[in-house]
């Protein structure tokens, strides 16, 4: 491991902290030193922690309903009863089930996302339009949703610094050596001002 590369990384770290806390030089040392020690000494610990952090798939509601339930859904809602009068009378379950798949989450379960998406049709009780356009409009809306925004630049920069430190095999240096290197970089910065 080259000490010069460590020095360069620390220099960037000092520079980074100084940009965010220009008048608070007393913060530079504890912040950088703690980060370095934490980053180096606990590398394996984090890896274990991250790998043992369990995430799961959530179960959903049951989608397949009996014919009676589907029929009751259309019959017990005045607007749907009117819109699907013929299909209800003929017990046309092919059409009713296809419409149920789109209208039950919206009118039955009152999904807020779908309610917002189909508000004009709900207001005008144009249920057939909802059923026919459902798939395409929901897919488009989902595609249009952006991934949650990036973290603030400061955190991104800190993250990069942490990764750089990790990559430098800094564990070969003692704590005292690291302290000295950080202090040296802070002094260098102060000297420039």
């Amino acid at each position, binding site marked *: 491991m080259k000490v010069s590369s460590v020095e360069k990384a620390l220099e960037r770290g000092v520079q980074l902290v100084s940009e965010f806390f220009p008048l608070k030089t007393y913060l530079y040392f504890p912040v950088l030193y*703690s980060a370095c020690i934490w980053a180096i000494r606990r590398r394996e610990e984090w890896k274990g922690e991250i*790998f043992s952090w369990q*995430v799961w798939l959530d179960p959903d509601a*049951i989608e397949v309903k009996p014919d*009676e339930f589907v029929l009751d859904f259309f019959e017990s809602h005045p607007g749907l009863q009117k819109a699907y009068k013929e299909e209800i009378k003929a017990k046309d379950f092919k059409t009713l089930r296809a419409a149920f798949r789109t209208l039950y989450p919206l*009118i039955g379960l009152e999904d807020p996302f779908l309610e917002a998406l189909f508000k004009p049709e709900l207001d005008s009780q144009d249920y057939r339009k909802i059923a026919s356009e459902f798939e395409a409009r929901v897919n488009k809306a989902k595609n249009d949703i*952006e991934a949650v925004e990036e973290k603030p630049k400061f955190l991104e920069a800190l*993250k990069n*610094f942490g990764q750089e430190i990790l990559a430098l095999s800094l564990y070969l240096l003692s704590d005292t050596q690291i302290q000295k290197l950080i202090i040296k970089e802070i002094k260098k910065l102060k000297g420039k001002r």
Partner: protein
Amino acid sequence: MNSNPRPSLPKVFLLLFCFFLLAACLSHLREAKFYYSQGQAFSRQYQTEKAIAFYKRALEEAKEEAKKHPSAQAYLLKGMAELNLELWKDAEASFLEAFSSGFEEGEEWASELSLLGLASSLPGLGLKDLALKSYSYLLDKSKLKPVSLYAAQKYTDLALAQSLPKEEKEKQKILNDLLKKMENLSEKDFGCGFYHYLQSQILSHLADYRKSFEEAAMARELGLPSEKIFRDNDLQIVFCYEKLKSLLPPEEWREYESHYEAWIKKWGWKDSQTPGWKKEANNAADN
């Protein structure tokens, strides 16, 4: 006496310090897990838009992790995010990649979850029977509750779909076998509201509305995993109420209705057909 003129650390510094420590140790895998969990939290609250935004971010992070540090967990996370975004083909590829990467000791949960994820991507690709077998295997073998919960729901949905077009006798057999399987799960973990919800749904297909109501009421009391399932369970309760109203003899109905009134009062419903969360009563019978 301390002559050090340095001021004490302000709260804002402590906060940023914590951020620093956190940020320094962040890996894409950790971030993927974090964003995925956030997506789940919003999804459970029925906040679809936010859930999708978080799942998309989780997918980005998982892709980065898989690119820089390929591992079974990186592909697992990628597949899970894809599954929630309904990207079936991508999800299937990710879960297969997770298997080929190999799981470490202590990662049995991730291995089972990958199998679960893989099974979930199969119906979207037209392989329903294979999915059903995978869920059945996991229901019999897994000791992990979240795996059992998810597998039970997927297995139930697929089996119910399978039963719909069948002749009455065959349909009854599929439904009774399915009910038995869910009852076994419930016997092992009676306090789990979700298993009671599943039984209520199956009993509804068997047209046993009294028992379906009882199981749904039990599920409501014990708690359900998400707002969507909770609402669906409430609508099942209303449906059973309406069916029983027309099916029960007058005396039995009166007795049932008095119990029902006590339940809905306890639950704070607006009336016998309107749960608290429902905006308005859609009561055609009264119109």
